[in-house]
C-alpha cells in the first residue's frame, strides 16, 4: 500500500507538468478554437532560453526568468503574426495544419541548435524531501506542483472575470459574430499567443527542473495534447485534473507492470487512456457539451 501511495504521489508531481503543458493548448483552443500542435515547441524553447541565461550566462534566477519569458512570448507573437493571422476567417482546419507546419519548423531549429547534445540546468529549486507519513516528496517537485495550481487558478480567473477573458471566449465561439460585436479578433489572437508563450515558459522551466533539455523535449507537447483532449480541450480544470491523473496512471502502471513486460509501459499508457476516454466521452471528461437545438 505504501509503495502504491508513493508511486501515486510521484505520479501526481509529474502529472502537474503535463497539466502545465496542456494549459497552453487549452488556452489557445478556448480562445480561438485552434488546436495548437506547436505548443510543445514553445515549451522547449522556453526551457532553452531559460538555460541560456541561467545555465550558460550564469545570471541570477530572477534575471534569467525575465528574458526567457519575453523571448518565448515573442515566438508566440511571431507565430500568430506570420502563420495564423492570415488565416483568420478561414476554416479552422487550415489553422490547425498551419500549427503543424510551425511544429515542424520550430522542431527543426531546435534540433539544428542542440544536435544530439543535452543541456542540464544547475539545480535552482530547493533540494531535500518533505516527509508525509511514510512518504517522501522532493521539494523541487512540490514547488512545480504548486506553481501549476496557482497558474491554473490565475488562468481560470482571467477567463471568468476579465473583459479580455470574455472576449476570448466569445471569439472562440464565432469569429465573425465577435467582429460584428466590436471585438478586434486580431488583437485577441495576439494576446492569446503571447499568453500561451508565457504559460509555455512556466511549463518549460518546471520541466527543465526535473529533466535535461534534449532533442525529444518538444514531444512533451504530445502528452500535453493528450491531456488537453481527454480533459475536453476547452476546460482548464479538465486539463489540470487529467494531467495529474495521467501522471499517476503512468507512474503506477510503470511501477507495477514494467517488471512484468520488461519496461516501456509509461510511453503507451497515455495513449490507452486517450483511446478509452474518447470511446466513452468523445468531447472529453470535462468539455463543454455541444448545444444542439431540436
Amino acid at each position, binding site marked *: 500500500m505504501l509503495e502504491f501511495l508513493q508511486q501515486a504521489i510521484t505520479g501526481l508531481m509529474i502529472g502537474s507538468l503535463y497539466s502545465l503543458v496542456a494549459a497552453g493548448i487549452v488556452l489557445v483552443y478556448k480562445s480561438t478554437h485552434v488546436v495548437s500542435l506547436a505548443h510543445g515547441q514553445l515549451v522547449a524553447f522556453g526551457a532553452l532560453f531559460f538555460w541560456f541565461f541561467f545555465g550558460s550566462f550564469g545570471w541570477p534566477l530572477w534575471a534569467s526568468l525575465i528574458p526567457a519569458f519575453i523571448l518565448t512570448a515573442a515566438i508566440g507573437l511571431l507565430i500568430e503574426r506570420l502563420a495564423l493571422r492570415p488565416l483568420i*476567417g478561414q476554416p479552422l482546419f487550415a489553422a490547425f495544419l498551419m500549427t503543424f507546419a510551425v511544429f515542424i519548423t520550430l522542431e527543426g531549429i531546435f534540433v539544428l541548435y542542440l544536435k544530439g547534445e543535452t543541456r542540464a540546468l544547475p539545480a535552482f529549486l530547493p533540494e531535500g524531501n518533505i516527509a508525509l507519513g511514510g512518504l517522501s516528496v522532493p521539494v523541487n517537485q512540490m514547488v512545480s506542483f504548486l506553481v501549476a495550481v496557482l497558474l491554473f487558478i490565475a488562468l481560470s480567473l482571467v477567463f471568468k472575470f476579465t*473583459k479580455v477573458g*470574455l*472576449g476570448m*471566449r*466569445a471569439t472562440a*465561439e*464565432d*469569429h*465573425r*459574430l465577435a*467582429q*460584428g*460585436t*466590436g*471585438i*478586434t*479578433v486580431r488583437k485577441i489572437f495576439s494576446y492569446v499567443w503571447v499568453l500561451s508563450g508565457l504559460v509555455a515558459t512556466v511549463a518549460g522551466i518546471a520541466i527543465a527542473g526535473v529533466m535535461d533539455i534534449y532533442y525529444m523535449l518538444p514531444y512533451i507537447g504530445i502528452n500535453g495534447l493528450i491531456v488537453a483532449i481527454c480533459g475536453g480541450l476547452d476546460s482548464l480544470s479538465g486539463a489540470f485534473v487529467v494531467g495529474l491523473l495521467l501522471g499517476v496512471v503512468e507512474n503506477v502502471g510503470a511501477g507495477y507492470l514494467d517488471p512484468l513486460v520488461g519496461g516501456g509501459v509509461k510511453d503507451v499508457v497515455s495513449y490507452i487512456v486517450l483511446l478509452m476516454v474518447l470511446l466513452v466521452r468523445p468531447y472529453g471528461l470535462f468539455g*463543454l457539451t455541444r*448545444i444542439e*437545438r431540436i
Partner: protein
Amino acid sequence: MLRLNNIEVIYSDVILVLKGVSLDVTEGAIVALLGGNGAGKSTTLKGISGLLHTELGEVTDGNIQFEGVRIERKSPEEIVRMGIVQIMEGRPLFEQLTVDENIKVGAYTRSDSGAIKADAESVYAYFPTLARMRNRISGYLSGGERQMLVMGRGLMARPKIMLLDEPSLGLSPALVKEIFRIIKLINDDRKTSMLLVEQNAFVALSISEYAYVMENGRIVLDGPSEKLRENEDIKEFYLGLSQVGKRKSYREVKHYKRRKRWLA
C-alpha cells in the same frame, strides 16, 4: 445620417450582387428595406456593417457615408465603435456564454464600467423575460428569447443606428408584435435610428416612416411608408391584397396576369 451612394457589391470578384443601391436613413427614423429572397437586402446591411469583408464580398463602386465619414473600407469593429450595430439574421448568440455574459460582450467597445452596468439594467427593463434568465446558458433559449438577447446585446454598444435583419423570422404573431413594440419603444426612447430588413411587409410598413423596395440588387421603389401601403404593386406583391383590397383567392392565382410595373 447614414447614406449609401450608388453602391455596387461584388462577391469573390465575380458575383455582382448589388447594382447601384442608394438609400438614406435620417436621424431617429425607422426605415424599412423590403424585397424578396435574394434581392440583396442582407448584403446591403453587411456592406454597411463591414461584415462583407469576412465573406469575400467588397464594395467596388459608390460609397457609404455615416455622419459624413466614408465607412465602406473600415473593419467591422471600427464600424461598431462609430455607432452602427447590425443585428444579424438567424439571431446568432455566443451560445456557451450566459445571457448576462452575452449582454456584457455587447459593450466590448466601451470602457465606462459604471454606465455599462446601468445600460445592462435598462436592457433588462426593455426585456423583462431576459432578466429572469441572466445566468442561463444562452444556447438553450427559445427563438423569441434569442431575438430579445441579440437586440439587447446590440443596444449595449449604444448604437446611433441599428441594422435589423429579419427580426420577425420564424416567430409567432404575438411575439412579432411584442418585438416590434420594443423596437418602436427603443426608437422613441433613445432616438436610435433603425434600418429594418423584413419579409413581413405589413408590420414593417406600419412601424417605419420611409421604405425602400429592392429587387435583383436594385432599389425599385421608395417612398413614405403610408404612401407605399397604398401602392397597388406593394398591395399585390407584398401585402397579398388584390386591387379591390380584399384578400386574393387562391383560385384566381392561375389567371394572374398582373406584372410588376417596374419590370419594364
